[in-house]
Structures are given as structure tokens and as C-alpha cells.
């Protein structure tokens, strides 16, 4: 781990730097042959994340040539795996670079392990899909890409491995790129979730393009796998989404205090915010955000906090507190995509327990709409789902729950099914549609399909809400606005130097935040006479020469794209 601390850096500086690091979770999937364990072992080894005694314990073992370390042995943990040379379960790995901490969910790739792949993907911000360059696109890679898309993992990195075996030829890589892009497009059409994809040619065994750029493939000018992982935006989207807070526990240490403990599932909350309690539909204002370390002015996803409201309401575990301006749907009938995980097949009209956020509700599957064949993406008629099967079903709940569609909210749109008799976790579910019921509360009224949601806007407009700040010569600001407009961006231009904003500091933030929450691109402009263009969004910023307007405009598109604001590069106008 020595390389983490550069010689010039004191511990104090190291700790200060560490405090700035964020966390990216990514999943990998692959089979015994495509070198996935080797790839992970290599990532850990090359980032100095393994200790000498761990390397010593595997030296001279394994199946690689004499003198070469079999990196797969660093990661294959269970006895059965070492004996059979396969990876059976999900394993979690940890490493860190000076820029970021990483958690890898390492899963097997065979069909019988589809459920493990879904488990790994459920918490991932990104997926690394492996393709063996000597074999081309196989079913395993398709399956992993399908699961990543179904579970809404936004970023997919395709590592085309074993480039050393095919003489590092560019043609093979480009053919795989073309082939797999068309697979991904078909998958996106089926799951309704486009993924952002990047391809990297690598050799995990030799180490080409894993951590360091390889000299063996000069035709590839992009970043290494690790550099890509370091540059991906992490789950920022949940902070700009509508506020959702499932109540985990009511804290009542004495008669003077009554707080609702939970984790912010999405969005942000501040004292004074109006919230609605679902499913009851009653409203209140947030009075305090309480933590052990003192009250907060703001809490954002995924912080764990305790909320105190300004009035007494009957609230208990399982209730969902939501922003009164952007409510969730209350439903008793839902449609969902299921990944079946149990050896006992899905039975219609068997009693299951549906666990959603912090509540558990008895549920019955009333109909199986179809089963998806991952190989062909065909929708097949089915009267049951077997282990590792994927399909779309209708579910009736015994009590209404407050929810969002999974494509809009990975937290309030997800559930698991538990067999009430065996207690096994039998399925992972992603809500694809919900039939709203009118809630008991007086303020709340939902029509048959609820209000237009952020996700629906995003799907139509091709981007989510965001704030883009640009300063530079006014002609260039106009060009940027025009260029975004012609790419179909729904934007609102705001002059930051407007008198109103100067008189009321804080108003600009309120205005832009509300635009962002409505899915608009708030374009905050500041004209000046300088020769530079400065553009900033979500913690990333660029400075460009204003005398090269074509390049500057295109860099702004690129900036928005790399911040994950567009749903695809096409919609980004790139």
C-alpha cells in the first residue's frame, strides 16, 4: 500500500486528501475462462491493494506459467472454488487510488449464477463487462449487459480482454465494439434503460491498459480501465431527485422528543420543507434534522438522519416521507420485472412477502406477462419462472404502499420477494408500472397514473435536470445556448448578474434548484469580456479558449455528457 502515500505527502496532507475521496461501486461478471478473476487480481495488485503475505500465500500455486502469479487466486475465496477453479458467489473487494475508493462486487458469469449477477449489480454505479477477444461476444457478456441494464447500472465499461492472445490487433477490437454496441442497443430497447458504454482493449494477464496505458496498442488512445473508473460520475442523480425518506424507526427517548429515523433514499431535505406522509397523505413541515453530531441545515441522499416534524402525526416504520411538491404513487397493484432466485419456481397465487424500503407486505403474483430469453431477447409466454429466470409479472399487494417506478428511483422502485414458508429470498423486483389508489389523506389526490414524473420527463427530453454555469463573452454564451437548444435540450437561461439576484442572495439557488428538480437544464450565464470560457456543472469544470468557439461549444456538450446528465451520447449532441 506504500504507493498511496507519495514521499512528499505528510500524514496530515494524506488525511486531508482522503477526506475528499468519494466512493464508486462497480460490478464485474465473467466466467472461469474470460479472465475476470485475473483482471480483478491485477487491479488490486497494480494499485498496491494487496499485501505481501497475501501474494506470498499464492505464489507458485495456480495454473499460470512458472514465475507468473496466478492473480485469480487472490480473489477466489471459498474452498469449493479453489478446488473446482470456479467463482461461485458474490465477493466484495476493496481498493483505493489517490482519487477515489472503490468497492467491487465480483460475480460469476454462468447462467446458473444470473441471480448473483443481479445481486452484484443492484448496488453498482457501473459495470465492467468482460469479452474474451479471442472468442468474441458470448452469451455471458450479453447476460451481464442485460442484467446491468435491467438493474439500471448507468455506466458500462466493456473490457475486451486477452488482447495479447490475438496479437493486439485493432481490427478484432473494432469488430467486437461494433457487434456489442448493437447488442446493447437491443437490450436498451427491451429494458427501457439505455446505458453509457465505453470500450477498452486490455490484457489482464500482462497488465495492458488495466492501470497503465499500454505501449502494445498505440492505436488505442483512450484512458486505461482504472482511469475510466476514476472519471465516472458516482451516484449524483439521487441527490437531485425528489425527496424520499422511508421511516425505519420512531425514536422516543422521552415525552419531549419524537423523531423519525431513516436514510434519505433520494433528494435533499431542509428544515422548513413541506413533506407528505404516505400512504396516509398527511402533511407537515420539517422542524429539525437531528444527528449525534448536532442538527443539520440540510441532509442529502444517502445520509442517515432523524427528522423531527412541526406537528404530531401518526407515523410508523414503513411510512414514506416525500416532498409535498413531488409525491410518490400509492398503489396496491403493480407490474414488475422479476429475477427469480430460488430453486422452487415462482407459483402464481402463492403467498409471498414483499419487502420494499422499510416495510413488508403480503403479496401474490396474479399473472406472468412474459419471460425474457436473454439470448434472443424474445418475450416468451410462461406460466412459471425458474431459478435465474427473468420476466415481467403483475403483483397484488394486501396493503397499499408508496412507491416510485424503478427507472425513476432505484431505492423506492425496488423490492425483494420472500417465501413466507421457507423464508428464502426468492426474487428481486423492479417496479415497471403501478396503478395508483386514492390515498386516505385530504390533500392527496392521484389520477389513474399519477403526476408526470421526473423519469418520464427524462425519457422524453433525453436528459435529467442539472445546473450549468458558464461565463465568457456574450456571443459565445449565445452559441452555447443555441447549440444545446438544437440538440433538443430543455433549458432555461438565467443571467446571474440580474439585479434581482444581486438584491436577494440565495434566490438564484432556489430558482435553479427548482428548475433542476423539474428536469430542466438551468443555464446560469455570466457575460464578461475575457478571453476565456469557464463552464461548470456538478463539481466538474472546464476552462477553454473563447477564441475557438467551435471547440468551446463542443467541450460544453462533452462536459454535460461526462457528468451523466444526458441519457446517451446521441442525445448529448455528440
Amino acid at each position, binding site marked *: 500500500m506504500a504507493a498511496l502515500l507519495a514521499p512528499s505527502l505528510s500524514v496530515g496532507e494524506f488525511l486531508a486528501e482522503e477526506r475528499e475521496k468519494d466512493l464508486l461501486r462497480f460490478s464485474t461478471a465473467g466466467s472461469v475462462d474470460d479472465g475476470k478473476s485475473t483482471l480483478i487480481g491485477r487491479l488490486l495488485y497494480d494499485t498496491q491493494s494487496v499485501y505481501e503475505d497475501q501474494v506470498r500465500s499464492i505464489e507458485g500455486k495456480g495454473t499460470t506459467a512458472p514465475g507468473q502469479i496466478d492473480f485469480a487466486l487472490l480473489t477466489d475465496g471459498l474452498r469449493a472454488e479453489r478446488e473446482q477453479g470456479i467463482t461461485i458467489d458474490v465477493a466484495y473487494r476493496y481498493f483505493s487510488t489517490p482519487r477515489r475508493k472503490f468497492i467491487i462486487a465480483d460475480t460469476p458469469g454462468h447462467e446458473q449464477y444470473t441471480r448473483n449477477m443481479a445481486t452484484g449489480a443492484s448496488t453498482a454505479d457501473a459495470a465492467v463487462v468482460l469479452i474474451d477477444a479471442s472468442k468474441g461476444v458470448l452469451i455471458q457478456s450479453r447476460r451481464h449487459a442485460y442484467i446491468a441494464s435491467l438493474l439500471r447500472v448507468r455506466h458500462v465499461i466493456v473490457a475486451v480482454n486477452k488482447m495479447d492472445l490475438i496479437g493486439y490487433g485493432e481490427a478484432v477490437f473494432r469488430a467486437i465494439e461494433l457487434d456489442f454496441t448493437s447488442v446493447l442497443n437491443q437490450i436498451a430497447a427491451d429494458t427501457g434503460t439505455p446505458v453509457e458504454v465505453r470500450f477498452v482493449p486490455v490484457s489482464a494477464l500482462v497488465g495492458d491498459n488495466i492501470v497503465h496505458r499500454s505501449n502494445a496498442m498505440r492505436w488505442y488512445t483512450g484512458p486505461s480501465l482504472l482511469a475510466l473508473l476514476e472519471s465516472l460520475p458516482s451516484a449524483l442523480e439521487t441527490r437531485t431527485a425528489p425527496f424520499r425518506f422511508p421511516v425505519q424507526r420512531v425514536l422516543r427517548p422521552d415525552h419531549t422528543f419524537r423523531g423519525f*429515523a431513516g436514510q434519505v433514499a433520494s433528494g435533499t431535505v431542509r428544515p422548513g420543507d413541506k413533506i407528505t406522509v404516505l400512504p396516509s397523505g398527511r402533511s407537515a413541515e420539517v422542524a429539525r434534522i437531528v444527528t449525534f453530531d448536532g442538527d443539520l441545515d440540510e441532509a442529502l441522499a444517502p445520509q442517515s438522519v432523524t427528522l423531527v416534524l412541526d406537528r404530531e402525526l401518526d407515523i410508523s416504520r414503513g411510512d414514506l416521507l416525500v416532498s409535498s411538491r413531488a409525491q410518490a404513487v400509492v398503489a396496491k397493484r403493480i407490474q414488475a420485472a422479476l429475477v427469480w432466485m430460488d430453486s422452487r419456481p415462482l407459483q402464481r397465487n402463492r403467498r409471498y412477502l414483499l419487502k420494499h424500503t422499510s416495510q413488508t407486505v403480503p403479496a401474490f403474483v396474479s399473472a406472468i406477462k412474459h419471460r425474457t430469453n436473454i439470448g434472443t431477447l424474445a418475450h416468451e409466454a410462461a406460466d412459471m419462472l425458474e431459478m435465474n429466470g427473468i420476466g415481467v409479472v403483475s403483483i397484488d399487494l394486501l396493503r397499499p404502499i408508496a412507491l416510485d417506478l424503478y427507472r425513476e428511483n432505484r431505492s423506492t422502485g425496488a423490492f425483494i420477494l420472500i417465501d413466507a414458508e421457507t423464508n428464502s429470498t426468492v426474487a428481486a423486483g423492479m417496479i415497471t408500472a403501478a396503478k395508483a389508489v386514492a390515498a386516505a389523506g385530504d390533500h392527496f389526490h392521484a389520477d389513474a397514473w399519477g403526476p408526470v414524473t421526473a423519469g418520464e420527463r427524462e425519457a422524453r427530453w433525453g436528459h435529467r435536470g442539472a445546473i450549468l454555469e458558464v461565463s465568457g463573452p456574450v456571443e459565445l454564451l449565445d452559441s452555447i445556448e443555441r447549440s444545446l437548444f438544437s440538440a433538443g435540450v430543455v433549458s432555461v437561461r438565467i443571467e446571474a448578474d440580474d439585479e434581482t439576484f444581486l438584491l436577494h442572495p440565495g434566490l438564484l439557488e432556489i430558482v435553479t434548484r427548482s428548475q433542476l428538480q423539474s428536469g430542466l437544464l438551468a443555464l446560469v450565464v455570466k457575460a464578461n469580456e475575457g478571453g476565456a470560457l469557464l463552464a461548470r456543472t456538478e463539481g466538474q469544470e472546464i476552462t477553454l479558449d473563447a477564441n475557438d468557439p467551435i471547440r468551446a461549444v463542443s467541450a460544453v456538450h462533452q462536459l454535460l455528457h461526462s457528468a451523466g446528465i444526458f441519457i446517451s451520447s446521441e442525445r448529448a449532441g455528440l
Partner: protein
Amino acid sequence: MPVAESVSPPSTPASAFAPQRLSHLRLLEAESIHILREVASEFERPVMLYSIGKDSSVMLRLAQKAFYPAPIPFPLLHVDTGFKFAEMLTFRDEMARLVGAELLVWRNEAAIAAGTNPIVLDTKRCCGLLKTQALLDALRHYNFDAAFGGARRDEEKSRAKERIYSFRDSAGQWDPKNQRPELWNLYNARIHPGESIRVFPLSNWTEMDVWQYIHEENIPVVDLYFAKERPMYVRPMSTGQDALLPVEQAFVARKGEQPQMIKSRLRSLGCSPCTGAIRSDADTIPAIIAELLSFRSSERANRAIDHDQEGSMELKKREGYF
């Protein structure tokens, strides 16, 4: 589409209304608190295994945070093998008093009275009696249905596959091939009578995360982690490095071995006969972190129990060990 070369992290502080970022420690903290609250709300009788080490210290602080301003709604349980360092026991009682938690201590008195120790038996059988058996007896005696442990997935290869909610059958055993899938942050807390769940709220923390958190949060830890002149038996090893064995139990010494004063500290706390010390000058937490960065060996390298057999931790866990 590769990221444009011109995109760089902000060189100036982000503007006032750019979305904030939570650091990795805040993200890990939020996840752990969520887990602690879920367990406290979904089980009848949860307990927190408190082993006095740095991981337990972090877990205890997270429990305080999870339920603040209410008290921690479950007791702490320490499985005392009789071979813990005296300093650890003093620290344990003091911490329980400070946080206002109920502390339960369980010992396998019969085995201790029979003179069980890792030299007379081997480490595997000694752990089996004094740790695993004692733990299972305590859980059964108090009828606990969920037990928090401070284990982390980065500690050992078989732990990398452990769930956050780890299901145990009525004999307390772990079946690694038949674990419940664990998706999103939705944990399955359903069990039949007699079965139980071991819960690991620190699953996703690394050793470095734990020390950084202790540093940032000013969490008290046992003095044995800090370097000091301490009496040690120095025993040459086949690797060329010396093993430092704390002078705590007389039976540890081999014939002719005399204690020497060595500036040393413990990197992980276990039973004194099975926990080697390391030579170190690190007497503050930043110094420990600096030392950690220069380490070439994993933290359990000095723990005899992990190495007595290929896959030994997995075997112990199958039998009910934490």
C-alpha cells in the same frame, strides 16, 4: 466515448449551489447506521458482540449515532476467553459505562477451569471451546436472534463472500454455498425459531477506513494499539523476522525465553497467547495511519488462528465462529 482531456476536477471550491459530495467515510457511516436501525427494528432480541478492538469501538460509536438521542436499544456481549489482555477488560467496562449500554460477559467456565489453552490444545480446538462454543452458548442462553459483529470483508478471503445479514441454522452454522441473495439495501430478516442472523454493519469498511474514522471522530481505543516499551518474548521465525509475544500468560514462554522491553504495539487485538505484537514507534493515530500505509503485511498476518490450515477461517465460520 472517452472523457474529454479538458475535464478536470474543480480547481476552485465548487460554487455554493453545486451538489455536495459525501466523502467515502460519510457514505460508509450512513450505510452502517441504516443496517443497525433495520436490525433493531426487525428482530426481537438483538445483541452487539463487543470484542473491545478498534472495529468494535467504531461499531459502538455507530450504534450511538443510529439511535441518538435515544439510548442503544440492545445489550453488548463480550465473549471472554480468559486470555484477553487485562487492559482490554478495564477498557471494556469503562466504555460500557460511558455510553450507558448494558454489558453482558460470557465465559466457557468449564473449559477454562479444565485448563484449556492454545499450547495444550492447538489453536483450532482452543478457539472452538473458548470462542465458538462460548458464543453459541451465550446466544442460546439469552435467546438472541440477531448478533452484530465487527468483521469486515477486507479482512480475509472467505469473509469477502459474507453477507451483511449472515444466516445461521439452529446449530449456529454458516453454509457458504447456500447464502441468501442480498440486493440493494433490502435485508431479509425472516427466520424460524432457533435460527439466527449474524449482522456485519462494517462489511464494506477497510482497515484504513476504520482508523481514519477513529481519527476523525476521536473514538477511544485500547492503549495496546499505541507503541510503548512493553515486555515481549522475542522468538525468531522462519521468515527471518522475529515474532513478538506479549508477556501476559506464563505458559507462552518457551524454555529459556526471557522477556525483553521492546517498543511495540498490537495491530489487532485478540487473545494474548495468539496475538503477536509488531515493533513500532506509532504512538498516535496519524502515526498508526502512516505506518499502515507503509505496511507490507495484512493485519491478520500476526493472528495464528487464520493460518493453521488452508481455508481455516472458512472452516471456523462454518462451525459457528464469527
